């Protein structure tokens, strides 16, 4: 089965504390992994993808094929990070549908 699992529906973290949003996946082909973010009253947007290996807004995510995980991390949370975060995957090197997890709401406490 092709599936993305985000175990936490809600994660509350104090400002300045480290953040880790968990994501595990199962996929039979060669997946490309993504993190999408939706800020309040904004549209869903791509935060980062594993093939680019970039750090966006201080967030990083490493693909661990052995553990089939793609956890999102940031060393120091900021209030503007409060948003809904979706882990997702698609078939590598193809314009194909995206399979989303249920999302984790990240709430940064002041």
């Amino acid at each position, binding site marked *: 089965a092709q599936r993305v699992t985000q175990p936490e529906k809600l994660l509350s973290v104090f400002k300045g504390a480290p953040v880790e949003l968990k994501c595990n996946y199962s996929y039979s082909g060669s997946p490309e992994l993504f993190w999408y973010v939706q800020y309040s009253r904004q*549209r869903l947007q791509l935060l980062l993808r594993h093939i680019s290996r970039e750090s966006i807004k201080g967030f990083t995510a490493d693909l661990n094929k052995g553990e089939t995980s793609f956890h999102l991390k940031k060393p120091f949370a900021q209030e503007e990070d409060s948003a809904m975060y979706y882990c997702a995957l698609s078939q590598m090197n193809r*314009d194909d*549908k995206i399979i989303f997890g249920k999302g984790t709401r990240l709430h940064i406490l002041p």
Partner: protein
Amino acid sequence: EAGVTQFPSHSVIEKGQTVTLRCDPISGHDNLYWYRRVMGKEIKFLLHFVKESKQDESGMPNNRFLAERTGGTYSTLKVQPAELEDSGVYFCASSLGGGRSHEQYFGPGTRLTVT
């Protein structure tokens, strides 16, 4: 540059009625996708157009849903007749063509409420 636009932003209809949602992709994007998020569930794929052709419609829930993309520009998604379980947010996304896993850009969504 305008992003993906969707109309209407919100629609409230009664069970049994018909609703048509519209999506205008980013100009020049050959790929157009429809997704849906039903309350409490994940965002799920409905179908994928490449230009005017349906590339993958494996996510369409049943034959009450009809999607079109005449001329390869905007797309419509019609639900006829609507049922209560069709309530949710319908997202459209578009991306460049060429088959190389281009970034999908999402519209703001249409919130459909069936009463």
